[in-house]
């Protein structure tokens, strides 16, 4: 017999009481943890499923599906059928639309862009005092090639009214309590962001189906802004006449203080503002932290850098805890909102312990601090420098 404790757990998770005793060893199918095809990622939480990518698995130019981080506020949809999928466009539009994925593919121009997506809470683990939420370190960032249609083309087909100010996004994921009427998360963006050339309704990643846990068969990609703007398993876009007020839009979710606050401060909700662009940031993706290298011999150090709505202008690395910096080669993005490849040759002068630090600068004069900046109650927007440990022999 299952214990009372297991029954309580299952009952709550399934949203309905289990009235019959469950035979020992049988786990309700809905709770079975599937292999989600993400080898090497660190699971921060099984339910809701949250997984972070170690930096060295992000070395590809375009992030493969198996390496993309997973962020969920709710439970995965029970099942998805691309052939039956519908996307509704509702709210302040002249003509509400109900589109199949085939409609999207045939009625609008398909485009493919490499677009960064980063969780707003990436880096939360380093804030002190700590902030509640998933304790992401560096790995809640990905930059795959996305294929889809421009969100603006679809919104224009529906005819956005002049009174529209914001979008509200809805997906097929489920509230953790099992309540079917409760969206686990519904965020949105200002109409101007939705109308940008690179804001997509995407059905493919790197030319193939995207992983189910990353939103297959349809998701939004709103590049440069917190990933929560890019609703997964997208079912509806509601055009609003006010700033969207769905779950995780208000209070302290995805919002930061309007002014600098002391670490640990209680900040009133009214003084919090919605996060828009993510900050300038970079990763060392090769080599992996912990390697040994020969003293006096040059080796390549490389990674990616990105800057939300802006572009990265310069990239520097340090082998001496930031006392001195050397300039790295920095490639242009393949398109706006793609991360930028940087690389340089490093020589460690003598045997010893080194930390290699990376620091990007954007085209607005912002760079990355060595410590977490701008403490905020929920631990967002930490763009501190990434480092790896290397021993020279």
């Amino acid at each position, binding site marked *: 017999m299952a214990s009372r404790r297991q029954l309580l757990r299952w*009952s709550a998770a399934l949203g309905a009481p289990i009235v019959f005793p469950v035979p020992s060893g049988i786990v309700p199918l809905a709770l079975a943890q599937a292999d989600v095809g993400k080898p090497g990622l660190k699971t921060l939480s099984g339910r809701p499923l949250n997984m972070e990518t170690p930096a060295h698995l992000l070395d590809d130019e375009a992030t493969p599906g198996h390496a993309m981080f997973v962020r969920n506020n709710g439970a995965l949809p029970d099942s998805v059928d691309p052939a039956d999928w519908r996307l509704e466009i509702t709210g302040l539009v002249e003509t509400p639309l109900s589109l199949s994925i085939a409609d999207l593919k045939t009625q609008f121009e398909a485009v493919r862009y490499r677009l960064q997506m980063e969780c707003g809470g990436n880096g939360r683990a*380093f804030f*002190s005092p700590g902030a509640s939420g*998933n304790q992401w370190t560096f790995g809640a960032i990905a930059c795959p090639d996305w294929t889809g249609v421009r969100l603006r083309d679809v919104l224009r087909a529906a005819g956005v009214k002049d009174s529209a100010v914001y979008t509200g996004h809805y997906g097929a994921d489920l*509230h953790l309590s099992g309540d079917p009427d409760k969206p686990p998360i519904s965020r949105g963006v200002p109409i101007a962001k939705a109308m940008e050339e690179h804001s997509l309704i995407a059905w493919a990643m790197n030319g193939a189906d995207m992983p189910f846990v990353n939103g297959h068969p349809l998701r939004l990609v709103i590049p440069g802004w917190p990933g929560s703007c890019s609703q997964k398993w997208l079912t509806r876009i509601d055009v609003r006449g006010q700033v969207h007020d769905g779950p995780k839009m208000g209070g302290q979710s995805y919002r930061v203080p309007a002014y600098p606050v002391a670490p640990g401060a209680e900040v009133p909700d009214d003084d919090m503002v919605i996060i828009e662009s993510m900050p300038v940031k970079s990763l060392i993706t090769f080599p992996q*932290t912990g390697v040994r290298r020969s003293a006096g011999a040059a080796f390549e150090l490389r990674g990616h850098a990105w800057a939300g709505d802006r572009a990265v202008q310069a990239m520097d690395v340090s082998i001496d805890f930031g006392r001195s910096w050397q300039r790295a080669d920095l490639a242009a993005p393949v398109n706006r909102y793609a991360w930028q490849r940087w690389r340089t040759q490093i020589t460690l002068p003598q*045997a010893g312990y080194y930390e290699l630090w990376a620091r990007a600068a954007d085209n607005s004069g912002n760079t990355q601090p060595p410590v977490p900046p701008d403490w905020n109650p929920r631990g967002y927007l930490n763009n501190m420098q990434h*480092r790896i*440990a290397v021993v020279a*022999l």
Partner: protein
Amino acid sequence: MNALFQKPGQAIAIALIAASAVLLGAGVLGAARFESHEVKPALPLTAAQQRFRELSRSWPTEPTYALTFDARYPSSPSLTSMRAAFDPSDDYSGLPRTGAYELVDAYCSGCHSLQIVMQQRASHARWAALITWMTETQNMPPLEEDEAAVLTYLAEHFSAN
């Protein structure tokens, strides 16, 4: 706080940081660390080179973020890797066995895995606000007379500092 450090994982993490800080205690712990990245020596090593290799075996494979940010509070584990570890094979997922661990397991694991509880770094006030948010808006059953014990447990083991 002492109970926290009885976990083997924490003992190892603390031992490793102590080793890197004061260059002590290489031994068995250190031997496992850099092995997969060994550089094969091309020539016979000098005594000094051999000494350096032995010394460096205990050095960290991760950068020293914890040392940097815990300088003022050297005994306070601020990184999740140094806290009570989630253990899926354990009946109570690795919850420290003090106080209200059974209540925490029963109330929290109905909706989400205990892994999400155990990685939190939240103050008592923040834990209280989270419970209120969950009961008022997320369909959590009210804790009523259990709330004080649950909050005490959460704030003690999964605190902001």
